[in-house]
């Protein structure tokens, strides 16, 4: 059964994606849930929870309110909390129980907005989908609502789209990408959504190109492309060779106005390497390995764009499917989160690459920063005496 797992974890859910995407923007996020989904997010999916406070709360849904369909309590509680805390905006999102009882989040958001006078977004989550779906909806909503009409264009300006700790668990990674962009002659206009305020995100229309660093940023990228004509490039600067390719793609896209996806590059014929990971971060790493001559393939168990999977990549998502795929593929090496070790074929080398959206806090101290040439050093540390991974 695809929905069964003997041992490996599941990825963070859509509600966590919404919260992570909006965490730093000064809004209030109300998760309509009894407790589990929200406490999972706060404990396992959000490394900022202990150091940076954000107005992310749970409704504490009870049996009686669920049975009676008492949406009024949720609406009144959100309005009261907003009156006390004065957020920049409000987002309401759901969990499994509101889905069961058919809560109409569009109507709930309208009602809250009317009462509070604060812009309120409905997020259509139910705790049954991956984080990137929730983050994608949230980042798109922010782009649609706040990005100002384009009055000028910064020739070398770049938006970073899809930055979440769930995919960039090492706090140095996003600053590292910013630095890498500057070193390559770009200036960062906005980063959706780590390290920038709503005011900064509002300037995204000035960019010449967007760098989509995870699937979570793709919907916002397409919005900026269609509304402002800003092309986008999918990739994360991982390794010297791929980073160079990515920088070239950014320049080229800014010039041509057309989106590009260098993260789908494959083609090496050396040792077989399977990378299990997120569509764009994992894809970029796989592309770098291909540049290095490895026969590298991406297994993406998460939501993805078909156009961002190369031939030979796989969207196997369940423990059973991934286990069967690896058994058939017989890769020499698997690069994946350490908790995938339980289902790898015998004698396959496993290079652990912690992914916060999968193993949460378990390996937080071992999250590497793989930006640009730092990947090369990291990979070198994984090689044997013969210099192969």
């Amino acid at each position, binding site marked *: 059964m695809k929905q069964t797992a003997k041992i490996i974890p599941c990825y963070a859910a859509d509600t966590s994606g919404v919260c992570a995407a909006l965490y730093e923007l000064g809004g209030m996020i109300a998760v309509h849930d009894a407790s589990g989904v929200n406490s999972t997010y706060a404990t396992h999916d959000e490394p900022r929870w202990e150091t940076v406070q954000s107005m992310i709360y749970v409704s*504490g849904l009870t049996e009686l309110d669920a049975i009676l369909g008492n949406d009024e309590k949720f609406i009144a509680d959100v309005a009261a909390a907003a009156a006390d805390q004065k957020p920049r905006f409000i987002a309401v999102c759901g969990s499994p129980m509101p889905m069961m009882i058919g809560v109409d989040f569009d109507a709930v958001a309208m009602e809250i907005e009317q009462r509070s006078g604060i812009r309120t977004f409905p997020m259509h989550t139910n705790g049954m989908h991956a984080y990137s779906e929730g983050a994608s909806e949230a980042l798109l909503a922010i782009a649609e609502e706040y990005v100002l009409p384009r009055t000028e264009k910064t020739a070398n300006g770049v938006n970073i789209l899809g930055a979440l700790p769930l995919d960039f668990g090492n706090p140095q990674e996003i600053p590292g990408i910013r630095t890498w962009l500057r070193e390559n002659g770009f200036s960062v206009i906005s980063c959706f959504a780590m390290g920038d305020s709503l005011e900064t995100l509002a300037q995204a229309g000035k960019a010449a190109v967007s760098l989509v660093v995870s699937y979570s940023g793709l919907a916002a990228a397409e919005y900026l492309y269609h509304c402002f004509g800003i092309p986008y490039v999918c990739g994360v600067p991982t390794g010297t060779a791929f980073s160079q390719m990515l920088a070239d793609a950014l320049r080229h896209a800014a010039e041509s106005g057309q989106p590009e996806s260098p993260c789908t590059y494959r083609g090496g014929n050396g040792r077989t390497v399977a990378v299990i990971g997120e569509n764009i971060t994992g894809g970029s790493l796989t592309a770098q390995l291909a540049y290095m001559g490895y026969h590298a393939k991406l297994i993406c168990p998460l939501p993805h764009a078909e156009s961002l999977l190369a031939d030979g990549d796989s969207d196997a998502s369940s423990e059973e499917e991934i286990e069967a795929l690896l058994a058939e593929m017989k890769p020499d090496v698997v690069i994946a989160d350490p908790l995938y070790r339980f289902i790898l074929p015998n004698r396959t080398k496993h290079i652990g690459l912690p992914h916060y959206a999968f193993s949460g806090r378990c390996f937080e101290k071992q999250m590497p920063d793989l930006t640009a040439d730092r990947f090369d050093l990291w990979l070198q540390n994984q090689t044997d005496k013969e210099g192969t991974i």
Partner: protein
Amino acid sequence: MQQLEKPPVCRIADADPNGAFASGLEYNPPVRGMWNIVHMGMLVPEAHQVYACAQGCLRGVILTAAETGQLDRLSWISLTEEDMFNGTLETSLVEGVSEIIEKIGFHPPMIPLFLSCMHLFAGCDFDGVLADLSERYPDITFVDCYMTPTMRTTITPVAQCSRQLYMGLKPLPQNPQSVNIIGCDRATDENSELIRILRGAGLTLRDLPLCKTYDDYLQMAESRLNIAYLPTAHAALDALEEKLGIPQIYLPARFDFDGLRENYRMLCETLGIPLPDLSDAEQAADAALRAAKQVIGDMAVAIDYTAVTRPFELAKLLCTYGFRVKHIIADAAGEDGEAFAWLQQHQPELQLWSPTNVNMLHQHEQVKEPVLAVGQKAAYYFATDRFVNFVVNGGYYGFAGIRAIAELMQDAYQNSKDRKPLLRHKGYGCDSCLLA
């Protein structure tokens, strides 16, 4: 100063003991010591837990197991929207659990199968599921368990889990020399008079945290008496009395000398054994409180409800010894309403704080004076490294427990802790990869 719609703090004199704060959205502070149902389920030796619920909830239980290094003792079945509506809810469970059993490659003696709120709302035939599984795997005891926080006002998840984990017990002939402690997630302090009385009478003490094997667990069914002292154990006591006919006695974990004397009198009367002289333990508790007061002086003290099951009674005790108890973090008076009323009368200015009110978000940045905290939430909200670090009484009980807490308070005053790594450790007392 902004007038808040829902203030997070009030004078105890103005507080309703049944609920001091208006219900509203809730904040989840980064304090993780309290055990959840996964930690509890791990107490049954050799059991393999299976959870069936949505991804958003599953992740929390799976990573709880992962952080404690016990992923191999837990499996899961995720729910999708289709499962709710296509009529396969029960068969998916039966087939999913069967698949897990085949994959893990052995038959665990017990599988606690945890269903979610969604199963209950969808009308899942849990009895039918368990019957089918029991027929397929007669050598495995399947126990219905629940991850249903939506139903927490009917029964809390901890109380429910505590009850269900004993439902794998099967009747045994009574052993008059055996007694159980029920409902604890950690062993009771061996220095407590409770344990000394039981062991001194030559009785065999059985307790889930003391079980090393599944057979140890099964032997609990032979006991002549079930003893509990945590309020979350009532449901388990009642269920065991009904299922196995084991009588119960509830001896609440009190911070009141008279109350403790009464507990021990009742215990010895029930067991038909003489009440030993406990004056040495009483005197030691008294001396420890006086010594702690001498050291701590007038420093403000904060107590939270996760540290002790009777925070108001502990506050009353400390106040009578001259401590300046200034803050209590709790929503309502639980079983220590009497102490709550005493504090209202004798310490009316004592501040009662909501544990979850959204306006507690920045409380830790607004602390006005140094505080000595009893409990993790108190340590967090009052931003202090001088704190007693335990949950649910920490296994302490009786006069020895009072003495231990007084000594821990004194130690907390004299030796600061780095609270951040301690507060983020999920499940106080459990192994954790975060500590590596």
